[in-house]
């Protein structure tokens, strides 16, 4: 298994853990932290796909990253 594929597996694990957290947790703060976990999983998947495939574009990756961070903090 290549390193990139292993990272994609980790990212899927992170995303699904975050999803489980959103479903099962009662506390709003931990619920928000779980959404952060999902966002981290998506970013890690994008970074590893960029490394594996090439040409996905680091800029679009950064825009997704910063956009996700800002979207979670929308007032």
């Amino acid at each position, binding site marked *: *298994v290549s*390193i*990139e*594929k292993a*990272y*994609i*597996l*980790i990212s*899927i*694990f*992170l995303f*699904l*853990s975050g*999803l*489980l*957290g959103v*479903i*099962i*947790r*009662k*506390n*709003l*703060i*931990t619920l*928000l*932290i*779980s959404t*952060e*976990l999902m966002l*981290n999983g998506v*970013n*890690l998947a994008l*970074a*590893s*796909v*960029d*490394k*594996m*495939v*090439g*040409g*996905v*574009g*680091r*800029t679009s*990756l*950064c*825009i997704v*990253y*910063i*956009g996700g*961070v*800002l979207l979670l*903090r*929308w*007032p």
Partner: protein
Amino acid sequence: MGILFLKNPVHALLSFVSLILAVAGMFLHLGAELLAGLQLIIYAVAIVVFYVFVITTIPWEKVKKFEGFYKKEFLFGFPVLLVAFGIFAYAILKGNFAHVGVAGQDNVKEVGKSLFTTYLFPLEVASVILLTAMIGAILLGRKEE
């Protein structure tokens, strides 16, 4: 896992900090230095401080009221997500990814250059949206006379 199962939100937050550092390390290993830097600056500093502020602002009795997790949802959701992980893992391990092009080497320079050339319009739109959010936050936070 600590985020999912620790009852105390402060402990969950500490577990989240360790996760952030681990993901930053993974970004570095993948050659995305800018993302690793952003991860450390935005997440490990700004967002964790934001959560600490939220935790200290909310009365502890209210936090205690929503401790724990929904057991029925866990019993149903956990196997479903386990199966989903199995399916994704099988697809990724068996499948092959098409090679489109070569990723750029100097990624900080590359991102900076394309943000101010190709992606100038989205950047400006994002700045206007941020300004609107800031004005909205100020208006919402103002005390009513």
